[in-house]
């Protein structure tokens, strides 16, 4: 009993910021600053949301969907095909190449942000949506997970297929591909969320209003209005409403796919 109470307490602490973000987004200035805060909201107002009517949401959502879709699909494909080669093919310098490609996982992205920005400018793709996509395509963490996953496919299964005269592409499509669904979904989801929340980089490369994503657009508006109190709406409430709108797509993805998030990536073949 004591244990369960303790668990419940931990949850409440974990969920408090999100809960109050939701509550306060429906409050005006007096409601937001009332101490102690109402656990169940009173005097609900939708002002914080109706203020956002004028935002170009269609544009932002289109950009976000474009970036997220292309990043997750292409990155998943690139990453898994590399892991596949490292697991199932023999070639010279395999180990060296693996270590080189994987070790860069420990380099903080901020270290590379300046030269990457310069490279993007030199490539002539600055001012488009492509920089936000291209830098995320190589995903060493995903490559590592992919390798762990493919390692659990029994080599004997592949050998017998090869002895039966299957070529490598047949092995891939007939044997490995059908059992790869969990890792594919995991990579699609993690890269999708990564593309949707990649704040620092997108803030740099997506500065034109027409190129902004939901994240960049909403945050830019919220901070730009942060210092000016407009039409009686306190910016805190509006910032909260912005947060709620940004959490929403992530939450939907999460609820649809939470069984893939929380599963153990135990292996392709259960023994």
């Amino acid at each position: 009993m004591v244990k369960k109470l303790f668990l419940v307490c931990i949850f409440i602490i974990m969920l408090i910021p999100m809960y109050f973000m939701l509550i306060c987004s429906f409050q005006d200035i007096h409601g937001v600053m009332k101490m102690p805060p109402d656990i169940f909201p009173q005097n609900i107002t939708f002002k914080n949301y109706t203020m956002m009517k004028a935002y170009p949401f269609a544009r932002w959502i289109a950009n976000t969907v474009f970036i997220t879709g292309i990043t997750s699909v292409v990155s998943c494909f690139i990453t898994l095909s590399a892991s596949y080669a490292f697991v199932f093919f023999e070639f010279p310098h395999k180990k060296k190449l693996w270590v080189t490609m994987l070790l860069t996982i420990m380099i903080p992205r901020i270290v590379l942000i300046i030269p990457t920005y310069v490279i993007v400018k030199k490539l002539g793709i600055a001012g488009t949506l492509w920089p936000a996509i291209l830098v995320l395509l190589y995903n060493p963490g995903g490559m590592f997970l992919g390798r762990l996953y493919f390692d659990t496919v029994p080599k004997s299964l592949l050998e017998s297929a090869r002895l039966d005269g299957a070529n490598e592409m047949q092995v891939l499509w007939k044997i490995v591909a059908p059992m790869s669904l969990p890792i594919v979904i995991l990579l699609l989801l993690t890269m999708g969320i990564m593309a949707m929340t990649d704040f620092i980089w997108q803030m740099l490369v997506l500065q034109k209003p027409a190129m902004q994503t939901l994240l960049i657009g909403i945050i830019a508006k919220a901070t730009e209005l942060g210092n000016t109190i407009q039409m009686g709406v306190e910016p805190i409430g509006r910032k909260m409403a912005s947060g709620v709108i940004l959490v929403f797509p992530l939450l939907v993805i999460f609820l649809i796919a939470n069984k893939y998030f929380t599963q153990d990536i135990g292996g392709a073949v259960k023994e």
Partner: protein
Amino acid sequence: MKQHKALAATFITPAFLFFCLFTLLPIIEVIRMSFLKINFITSVYVGFDNYKTIFKDEAFLLSIGNSFVYAIITLLGVCTSVFFAFFLYHMTKRWQDTVRILLYLPVLSAGIIISSAWGWIFHQKGVINWLLQSDINWFGQASTAIPAISIMVIHAGFGLNTIVILANLQGIGKEYIEAAVIDGATWWQIQWHIMIPMIAPILYMIIISTIIGAFMVFEYIMMVAPYSYTATMAYSIFQKGFEFSRYGIASAQAVVLLCISVGLFMLKKQVKAW
């Protein structure tokens, strides 16, 4: 086994291409740029001048110090994750599954999105001050701002760390624990001498990534306390590079951060070799 050079090359080339373009080339470039004085038009080789400048720059030295303070405080958060994972390990399966889903939620809302809620909680007229019956300006000085921001960072990472540690605890073979019980080990001895060493590799991973994560704290600082006394190295690099357009100086700072992360990584290998 037969070699498949051509196939392997086809499969790896796309990943390798992007690896070269957006990881390898930037590493080389950042080192090269750290020796240059870069304006918009010209770039001049200046040797180690940028490094001399940044190590005389008090703001940068402060940001290194701050980063280590963030690292130490967030490591305390990792300790709580370890305790909580052990706690969950001894709960029933049904509780564990419920908890895992709920623990993921703050992970989803990490960083920039949730910072407005934190700003409200630590507001001078906010919840924390109301609970403590105090009137502290939490973001007004380093001694309160850094712990406050660290709490946000811990909150965002707590769930994922716990889940990873729990998964590793569950992976420990029951036979080790049973053998220890037969040998007469106490409950505490089992936790400390068997389970902790068994999950040591993943703990190293989490500790290293937490320390590097502390150097990378950025969004919270930008949103709630954008001051020099709260800055981390990431914030300092970003400011020098993109607000003051001093690419050379910022690159030199980035190289220092690169060396620190490589150093931490080597340290991990040393610890393993013990």
